[in-house]
Structure formats: structure tokens, C-alpha cells
């Protein structure tokens, strides 16, 4: 018996000694490991529209312009200067001496090639709206190009700095052909000019980036500091936290509030709540197409607005960086007027309005949601206090959006991240221009948005959007709820700055 016990103990001791240490983790081997729950297989920001590729897009590639998040100003990146030539053409001077990761030099041919490739609908860029505003690009000299627009698009600079990354000329030309005869552009090896070079991807496991030692001087992004950046896919949040606490990871985000609060007691990590560009809103069925016509009455919509304690939701559920919003946009976006009609929390007023609308004892309806169920449940709780009984149908996003487009939802609780574009055209114009997403199709709002979307004069744009946003809030086509905030948890060894647009700039991170 003793022999068996000794053998087991020896086995356990051997196990403890040989237990594998996390590979390539942390300050010791100069590798920043970050993880999300998504699998990344395609490493190309045009052919993978996940948030992970938005983040990696800024690591591996450069855009023509750089938006300074502190000042909101646009600064030179691959373009050294730019100017509008009318309202449908931008002329840009390009930077000299920049090299792609494959050693080739950057010039006007690369810009022309990139823009002509991505703006061609046949080439299947996934989020086509990011690039469809560009008609084409033309070479004006070795380091000078013009970008021609389909129509006036004043938010062009925001898109040029955020989502239009430059690849070398001919980059996609040798893409393999799929069995259906179409080109597989997403499988081309990533090459950019960015501060990190692509090394390897293993779908479902990791994407590895290495510091670009030859990153050009004078970039507003600064020189990269950390040797390697490794993205890992770890689906389960508890596993991510376990890896963070044991040194296998250095950075995670989207940590639920309760877990983030508990992690504050750990000495090895920093917990931070930072704002994002995503907003939450309730959209009403104002034309009664869902078959439940309660919300065709403005007084009922007003009652709902007064019944929901949005401050309490932001404070208790979302996090300290979240704020209640009055407008159908994010306060950080250009043109997002804040002096619009506001709806304060006043349950007594809500009850009175319900009685005036003919529902003194409330009513029962269906509410639809797809994200953060607890936020919608808080809304349901508040509505119950004034006598409105909401029955939750919780769906996957794609299923819900389909229903929204068909007008089958009395109220849908949705969110929108605007692709981190700091301009109201990325949200208000998307939802109130009369398209399938527009719950009201109000001609006055549509006209104001059209004016804002096509003028290059900032003052004209602001005034036009304000008219639209005022009408949207006054009529309560939407009840804007709050901005989202994310909990970031990262190693104490890491010097990292959170950003308000939900795009962590790992190229600025360094070890303490």
C-alpha cells in the first residue's frame, strides 16, 4: 500500500515540476498576449469585418490620415497633406521613404491600386459601406493622388483615417481562385506599412505580429515598443481571466462588471472601465406594422421614456464610463447635437401619460433584444413599475435584424458601434435616411440628413443634423439610452492607454 502511495506522490511531484509554462507570455519574452472570444482566420481588414481585425488593421497597416483621439484633429500619416477640390474630389500629397513589410517602396501606385480595388463592388469587400463612397483614385504624380467620390461625402476624412488601409500595388492580383471561380482575396498574405509585421496565423488559436524595426520616422503612431503582439482565441471569459491571472495573457476586455469589480482586488492586474463608440437605443414601431399598435401613440412612447431609469442602468450595470444620451448618436461623433428634447426619469408622469393615452392599467407587449440581456431586463423591470408588461424575446442579431427590417418588433432594444467612425453619418444617417432601418421615414428628418450628408461645410452639416436629431428625439422614434463602456483588465507590467473608440492601439503599449 505504501509503495502505491509513494508512487502516486512521486507522480504528482513530477507533474508539478514538469507542468508546462505558458508559451510566449508577457514582459519576460517581450510578447503582449491579448485574447477575445473570436476566431480569426482571415487577416485582412477588408475581408474580415470583426472588431479584432479593426484592431489589427491599425497594427499591420497605415491609413492615409491619422486622427488624433485627444484633439480630434486629422494629422498626416501616409499622406502628408490633403485638400478638397470641390466637394467630390480630395487631392493628397504622399509621404516619401516609406517601405512596405516586403521591402517594396510606397508611392502613388499603391494608393491608386488599393482604392480602385476596394471600391469595386465586384471585389467583395465585406463592409462595403466603408469604401463605397469612393468612386476611384487617380495618379497625379509619383507621390500625388486624387480620390474621386461618388457624391459629396463630408465624413470622408474620418473614413480615410479609420478604415481605408493601404496595401502594395498588385497585392490581390495573385489571389487564389475558389472552386466557384471567384477570387479569394482574404487568403493573400498580409502586407502593409504598419508598426507591426504579420508573422503567422493559426485559425482558432492565434495571430502573431512582430515589431516592424524599419517603421518610418515621423509617424504620429510612434515607434512600436513591444517585440511581439499575439492575439489568442479563448472563447470562455472565465478561462481568459484564469490565463490573465496565471500569466498566460496580458490583456483582455469585455469583462462583465461583476467579475471586473472582483478582479480589482488582485495586485497583478489593472482594471479600467473605458467608453466606446457603441450606443444603446430603443426603437419604436411608430407605424403599427408589428400588429401591436401601442407605440403609434406618442403619449405611450413618452410614457416609456419617462418610465426607464437610464441613469441607474448606466451606473449599476454598464460601468462608470457609460453616460445617458439624449440624441440618436454618440456624443463624441461630429454633428451629434446634445441640446435636443430630453426625457427624464419620472414614473408618475409616465403613469399619467399612459392614462391619457387610454391605458390607465397599462398593457402587455413584446420587446426584442440581442445583446446584454440584463440591460433589457432592467428596462422591463422599470416598465413593469408603471404597469407596462414587456415580454422579452431574445434572439441572435441576424434573426432580430431581419424582424426589425420586416417591422415585426413593437420595441427593439438594439446597439450600434458606428465602426468607430466619429461622425453622425455613421449612425443617424444609417437609421433615418428612409431605408429599411428607418422606423419612421419622416420626410423632414430624411431631408435634413440628406443636407448634412452632402455638404462639406461643417456649420451647415451641424445645423442640418441638429434639425434631424431634434425631431427624432422630440417624436421619440428612438429612445436613445446610453453609451456602452467596456471593462479592460490587463497586466500591471503593461503601460497601456485605453481609447474612447473601442480600438486598442497596441502599438503605443510598452512594458513598465
Amino acid at each position, binding site marked *: 500500500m505504501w509503495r502505491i502511495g509513494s508512487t502516486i506522490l512521486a507522480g504528482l511531484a513530477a507533474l508539478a515540476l514538469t507542468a508546462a509554462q505558458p508559451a510566449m507570455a508577457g514582459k519576460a519574452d517581450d510578447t503582449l498576449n491579448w485574447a477575445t472570444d473570436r476566431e480569426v482566420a482571415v487577416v485582412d481588414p477588408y475581408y474580415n469585418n470583426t472588431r479584432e481585425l479593426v484592431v489589427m488593421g491599425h497594427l499591420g497597416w497605415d491609413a492615409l490620415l491619422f486622427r488624433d483621439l485627444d484633439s480630434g484633429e486629422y494629422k498626416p500619416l501616409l499622406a502628408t497633406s490633403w485638400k478638397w477640390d470641390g466637394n467630390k474630389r480630395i487631392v493628397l500629397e504622399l509621404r516619401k521613404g516609406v517601405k512596405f513589410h516586403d521591402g517594396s517602396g510606397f508611392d502613388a501606385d499603391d494608393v491608386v491600386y488599393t482604392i480602385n480595388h476596394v471600391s469595386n463592388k465586384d471585389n467583395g469587400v465585406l463592409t462595403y459601406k466603408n469604401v463605397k463612397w469612393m468612386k476611384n483614385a487617380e495618379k497625379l504624380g509619383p507621390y500625388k493622388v486624387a480620390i474621386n467620390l461618388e457624391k459629396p461625402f463630408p465624413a470622408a476624412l474620418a473614413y480615410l483615417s479609420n478604415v481605408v488601409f493601404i496595401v502594395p500595388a498588385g497585392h490581390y492580383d495573385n489571389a487564389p481562385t475558389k472552386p466557384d471561380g471567384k477570387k479569394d482575396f482574404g487568403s493573400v498574405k498580409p502586407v502593409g506599412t504598419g508598426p507591426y509585421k504579420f508573422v503567422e496565423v493559426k485559425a*482558432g488559436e492565434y495571430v502573431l505580429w512582430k515589431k516592424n524595426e524599419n517603421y518610418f520616422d515621423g509617424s504620429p503612431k510612434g515607434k512600436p515598443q513591444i517585440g511581439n503582439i499575439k492575439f489568442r482565441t479563448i472563447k470562455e471569459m472565465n478561462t481568459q481571466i484564469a490565463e490573465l491571472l496565471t500569466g498566460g495573457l496580458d490583456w483582455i476586455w469585455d469583462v462583465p462588471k461583476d467579475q471586473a469589480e472582483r478582479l480589482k482586488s488582485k495586485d497583478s492586474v489593472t482594471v479600467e472601465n473605458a467608453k466606446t463608440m457603441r450606443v444603446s437605443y430603443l426603437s419604436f414601431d411608430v407605424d403599427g406594422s408589428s400588429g401591436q399598435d401601442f407605440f403609434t401613440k406618442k403619449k405611450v412612447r413618452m410614457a416609456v421614456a419617462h418610465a426607464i431609469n437610464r441613469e441607474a442602468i448606466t451606473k449599476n450595470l454598464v460601468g462608470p464610463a457609460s453616460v445617458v444620451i439624449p440624441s440618436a448618436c454618440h456624443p463624441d461623433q461630429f454633428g451629434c447635437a446634445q441640446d435636443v428634447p430630453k426625457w427624464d426619469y419620472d414614473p408618475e408622469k409616465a403613469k399619467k401619460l399612459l392614462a391619457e393615452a387610454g391605458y390607465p392599467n397599462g398593457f402587455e407587449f413584446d420587446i426584442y433584444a440581442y445583446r446584454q440581456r440584463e440591460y433589457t431586463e432592467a428596462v422591463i423591470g422599470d416598465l413593469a413599475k408603471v404597469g407596462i408588461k414587456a415580454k422579452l424575446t431574445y434572439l441572435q442579431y*441576424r434573426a432580430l435584424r431581419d424582424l426589425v427590417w420586416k417591422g415585426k418588433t413593437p420595441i427593439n432594444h438594439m446597439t450600434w458601434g458606428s465602426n468607430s467612425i466619429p461622425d453622425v453619418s455613421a449612425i443617424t444617417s444609417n437609421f433615418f435616411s428612409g431605408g429599411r432601418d428607418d422606423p419612421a421615414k419622416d420626410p423632414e428628418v430624411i431631408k435634413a440628413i440628406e443636407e448634412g450628408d452632402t455638404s462639406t461645410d461643417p456649420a451647415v452639416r451641424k445645423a442640418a443634423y441638429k434639425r434631424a436629431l431634434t425631431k427624432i428625439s422630440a417624436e421619440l422614434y428612438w429612445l436613445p439610452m446610453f453609451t456602452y463602456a467596456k471593462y479592460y483588465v490587463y497586466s500591471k507590467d503593461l503601460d497601456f492607454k485605453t481609447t474612447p473608440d473601442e480600438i486598442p492601439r497596441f502599438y503605443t503599449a510598452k512594458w513598465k
Partner: protein
Amino acid sequence: MLSFAIKRLGVAILVALTVSVITFSMIYLSGDPAMALAGEAATADDIANIREFYGYDRPILVQYLDWLFRALQGDFGQSHYLKTDVASVIFERLPTTMLLGACAISFALILSIPLGVISAIRPNSLIDRISLTIAVVGQAMPSFWFALTLMLWFGINWRLLPITGTSSWLNFIMPSIALGYYVTPGVMRLTRAGMLEVLASDYIRTARAKGLRPLRVLFKHALRNAILPVVSLAAVQFGFMLGGSIVIETIFAINGLGFLAWESIQRADLPMMQAIVLVLSVFYILLTFLADMINAFLDPRIRVT
């Protein structure tokens, strides 16, 4: 025996086809796949563009038959998300899941058979009650909770085992225990019941009367017969583990077929989902077929039922 085998094979093929049809229909019931591919930020134009690009504008029946025809030739098409050949991805990840399943079933058998035998030798003893407790806990405890408990103690508190990945054999210890434990109760109770029945039979009494050593009687004469139904059960449970490893692979970040299935469902990667369901169904059906054959071979009465 041959006609029995042919009948079972026919049923197996019909089941595989039915599973593929139902799965295909369910994918469409959960929403528009073009919308899922386009992502949250996509506009109506983006989605229409993708619908046309991937051929989702064709009738569903045409899409299904097209896929089935190609699948029968070993071509599962291209993954919309991974942008690569579906078959190559599946066969790249299948060994990891097979290894995990093999480790888990081995753990379950190593734990449950000895406990089942001991419980049968000493029915209603302390060890039998302990075994019963293990069985009840194993059936009642959710695998994700057990996995997280293992991770907490062996990964975080004691730092004995790595938490994620597949880079060494140590990575497989916790997932195998978490996956295999759920199977333990069934095997243990079946072994116990089988052993109790066999130990009470005449030929065991005769063996004992001949003066054979107790261990020889137990392992050579009794267990050999009692374990036959356990082999059938283990085969079926192995199939269950291949399909049921989704939770465990997700928790331990193991890049196997279960994790791939979960990811594919989330991103509505139609070709990948269809292929995974088909491959797992075929495995499960083959294992069930094998178990049926073993049982029929051992017990001729089954062949005529």
C-alpha cells in the same frame, strides 16, 4: 447476420441523411446567413451584395442538393469565414478531438471499471456507497462547472497544469477528466450490475469449487463476461464525446472539432456547419452500428428481433 447488418446499415444511412436535412433547415430558421456574414455594421446593400456573392439567393432546395451532391464526392466546399477548404479544416482538427475523446474515455474506463468490480464484490459496503456517490455526483454535476473547478485548483491555485492549448500532454489532463467524468457513472453501474449477475452464476461457483484463486475467478472468468455490454456502451459514449466536446473544448480553448462547430454556428458558416454535423453524425452512427454488430454477434437473439 448479413441481412441484419444490411438492415442496420440502411437505417444508419437514412439517419445520416435526415440529420443533414434537419440541420440545413435549422440554419435558415435561425436567420439570414448573408446578414450573419455581413456583420452588425452592414447596411442593406452590403447584405444584398453578400447574398448574391455566396449564392444564397438560390432556392434552398437547390442549395441543399448541390451541397449533398458535392459532399458525396468528398467536396464540402469552402468555408465562408475561414476562406479555405472545409474538408481540410475538419480533418486538421478532428485528430485533436479524437485524442481528447480517447483520453476521456480511457479515464472513464480506468476509473469506473475497477470501482464497478469492487462494488460488485462488496455490495452495500462503504466502497460501494462511495462509488454510488461518485456516480450520482458525476451524473448531476454540469461539465462546465466541473471544468472550471479543475481549472481553479489545478491551474490557478496550485499551478500544476496549463489552462489552455494543446502544446503538451499536460494540456489534455483537465479536459479529459472533465469530459470523461460524465461517462463514469453509467459504465460503473453497468459493470457493477454485470458483475453481480455473473458472480451469482453457476460456472463461477464451479470455478470457485475447483479451487481457482479468487483473483483468477474474478478477472479471467467473471469480468471477461460482465464487461461485454460495457464495451458496447463505451463505443457509443466515445461517439457522444466527439459531439459533446463543444463545451470542454470551448472552456479549455482546445482547437478541435467541437470548438469549430460552436464557432461555425455563431458565424453561420453554412458549409462548415453542414460538414461537421455530417462527419460527427457518421462517426456516431458508425459507432452505434458497430455496437449493434457486437451485441448481435454476442447475443444471437438480437439478430432476429
